[in-house]
């Protein structure tokens, strides 16, 4: 099975202190460290496990610039066979639709049976997978937390509100957005990355993909960020009073009222 995993390089929230820039329209990006978007990492692990079982290859792709190559190498150190960097001046400032369009063009150039994305990235938009599937006219399932490969289709389960699971059959080729927890991604150390350090990673631009430059990038973006701020703090925490038992009773009541306990 030929599997494509779309990945993104993001500032790692656990290793950065996110502050706003002076203009207030973005976060301060100096002194940030980056890693692979956590969901994408699970998607790559899932792809590797599928290939281990049924054979095939895993390709990782990202839309970005030279800095983004490092995450491709990290995923290749995990076991992905190919990495592709999609980079073009014309792509910068693309909104979700633009990114989906670029990736869809890349998918059409190849011959992939399965395309995986993470459920979402750091910005939480969770849109590229679905839009790409629509552009490709492929079936799509989101929040996937298990995959079984069958002949010509997949049996997948999806995470539903309240911790329930829904089982689906989905035809191939398709696009799935992968939820964290679907597996336990393997560790990649410096040694692994060094071993793939000299592997050539092809860079593809707009003309390679046949993407009309006017259809992507900042000019074509129909969603634009106009502000970025920390919401004002709401009412403070409620302090429970009374003896330990009383506090426990009140706490249970509160949790029940909010639907946390049945």
């Amino acid at each position, binding site marked *: 099975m030929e599997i494509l995993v779309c990945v993104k390089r993001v500032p790692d929230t*656990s*290793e950065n*202190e996110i502050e706003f820039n002076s203009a207030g329209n973005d976060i301060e990006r100096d002194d940030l460290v980056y*890693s692979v978007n956590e969901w994408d990492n699970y998607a790559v692990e899932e792809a590797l496990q599928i290939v281990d079982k049924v054979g095939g290859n895993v390709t990782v792709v990202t839309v970005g610039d030279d800095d983004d190559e490092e995450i491709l190498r990290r995923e290749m150190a995990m076991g992905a066979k190919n990495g592709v960097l999609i980079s073009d001046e014309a792509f910068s400032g693309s909104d979700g639709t633009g990114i989906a369009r670029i990736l869809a063009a890349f998918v059409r150039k190849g011959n992939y049976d399965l395309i995986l994305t993470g459920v979402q990235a750091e910005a939480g938009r969770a849109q590229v997978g679905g839009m790409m599937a629509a552009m490709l006219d492929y079936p799509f399932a989101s929040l996937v937390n298990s995959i079984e490969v069958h002949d010509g289709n997949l049996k997948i389960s999806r995470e539903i509100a309240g911790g329930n699971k829904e089982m689906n059959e989905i035809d191939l080729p398709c696009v799935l957005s992968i939820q964290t927890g679907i597996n336990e*991604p393997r*560790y*990649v150390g*410096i040694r692994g990355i060094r071993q793939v350090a000299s592997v050539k990673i092809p860079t593809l631009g707009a003309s390679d993909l046949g993407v009309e430059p006017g259809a992507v990038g900042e000019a074509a973006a129909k969603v634009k960020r106009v502000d970025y701020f920390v919401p004002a703090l709401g009412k403070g925490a409620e302090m429970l009073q009374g003896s330990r038992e009383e506090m426990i009773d009140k706490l249970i009541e509160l949790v029940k009222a909010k639907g946390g306990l049945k």
Partner: protein
Amino acid sequence: MSGTMVEVIDSPAQATYWVFQGRVLFSIIPLLGIACFAYLMARRVAPLLRSAPDFRFDQISIRFTRSLKFWLAQWKQPRYLVAGVLHIILFAGFLALSVRSVSLVALGISDHFVIPGFSGGVGHSYNLIKDYAATLVFLCVVIAAIRRGVIKPARYAVPAKYGKDHTAEAILVLGLIAILIASESAFEASKAAFQMQLGQPAETLAPLSLAWMMKNALLSTARPWLRNLHLSSYLIHELTFFAFLCFLPLGKHFHVITSLFNVYFAKLRRGTLKPVRWGVSDEQLDQVKSFGVKKFEDFTWKHMLDFYSCADCGRCSDQCPANAVGRPLSPRFITIKARDYSFRHYPLFGKRREGEPLIGGIFSADEIWSCTTCGACEEECPLMMEYIDKIVDLRRGMIDEGNVPQSMQKPLKALESRGNPYGKMEKKKADWVKEKEFEQGCQVKILSGNNSATTLYFVDSITSYDDRMQSIGRATARILSDAAEDFGILGAAEKDSGHEVRRFGEEMLFMTLRDHNMDAIKASGVQRIVTADPHAYNALKNDYKGAPPVEHISQVIAREVKAGKIKLNRVESEDTVYTYHDPCYLGRHNQVYDDPRDVLDAIPGLKRVEMSRCRDRSFCCGGGGLMLFYEPQEEQRMGVLRVKMAAEAGANVLVTACPFCMVNMEDAIKVAGMEGKMTAIDLTELVDRHVARASPVTV
């Protein structure tokens, strides 16, 4: 001789056994025995020939001296007094009787055989010694059998998950030894009784020895019976001797043969780790195809020899804190399982069998992650076996395969990108010196090109970033100021020492951290290093190569107190009872036991008690560095057991000298519900409170 026929007892060589002439029979038995033994040994050596290299052929005089101490003098045996003394007697008895055994075998071929140097007076004296040796060994065998079969000390038990009980093997061997001793004594006694009945000169048997008692019992036995007893006891001895010899390589008594080699080739340098592969430099590591131990043959020959040499005494696991809290790790069974694996895959007959991977096969991942590398097992092992190097090698293998618990991947990634496991910003590394009150009394230099110092205070991650442990950093800095040390810190340029990174098997990441720190240390131009973190201390001292000399703060304080540079005030409360907990990487791994105690004792009026497990038997707090991120399967926390030990000793303040011990102890005090009854404090914090300062520093 013409005329009178002198009645003499037949010698085995001259006697006839059924249809065999004694001399022939007793030439064939040793030949068959030795051939069989040689075959078994050749089969046992087979895996060692396919093992990883291990360089142990240096330091001959040190190795020789250590062999005298740990092998011949059985140095570690009395740590377990009863078993130890029994073993020393058995061992010494064996050595004494080995001469007799050789000469007995030869006597079966020639009546006149005497080991060179053992004729005349020497021979007679030796005979007395060996009679007593045999008797003592016989007694020890009886006591040992009672211990094994009746008393059954808990550490010999085999938990169901590790297979069947090992008592039968122990009893069998004790039985064989008893037969050897009894038959040798009967051989001697029957001859002496025979000769005495006829008034012939007989070898003097040592009074009250087993042989002597047998002789007395046989004085009135008919001579044909004595003759038969003499000859049959010889045959029994001969057969038992070679059966025993050939049995040795089949189980735990292999140590009788391998122990000398195991002790001679034992690891010499504490606190160090073996390289990924002996003979491969750091620069060449990229060319090594596979890291660590994944299959049995990835172990070094010495580590395989360890497996063979284990006497199954259970002392390692008895001391192991991971085993004590119910983690899935028992060092004894790391060895026994590996030994049995080797026996299965390198069988005595037939072809070598390809082995399955070790992790997921005989070892579980959790078993290997459970070790805190505290070194209690290695300290205890009478045969000087290594565990930490093997555990680290197995972890290197798992890291290489990407098999790392999820809880540890984040800190490892953070160490890679930020140089500390918490993912904190580098620029905040020195924030702890900016605390207002502290800054007023003590200014800490951050070393850079134009800001230099003689001494570097290496702070390390936890003391730099953890709110609670920053107090240790500030106490250390104040003490260094009190001692008029010209010191500074590296600040943002200091990355994690990588001590635990290395011990968790991430060698390449460790090397990156080490190289970064070494560059920063060299650039700072300091002449010496001080740290209050034993893990950093061990890394700088034993893992880094070419770093300036490093001291733990307890060593500095002890020296400055002695020199009178630091004066300590009387304790505030005489009711407080202190006990000192030895951090593993200060105590066992680096032998700094006395300095921290001297410092405590230098505080006037301080009452100090020792826990039953102290110094080289200290009980690990639960482990530091990355171990704080590992989520072990365990029944209770090591720290909880430790604070209970402190309470048992009658202490209400537990003093330690390591920030990780502090994390674990303070947590443990809460978990054990001992808040208000027990407090943990770092040595630097305690000293800081007691330093007699001209202008008191507000703490």
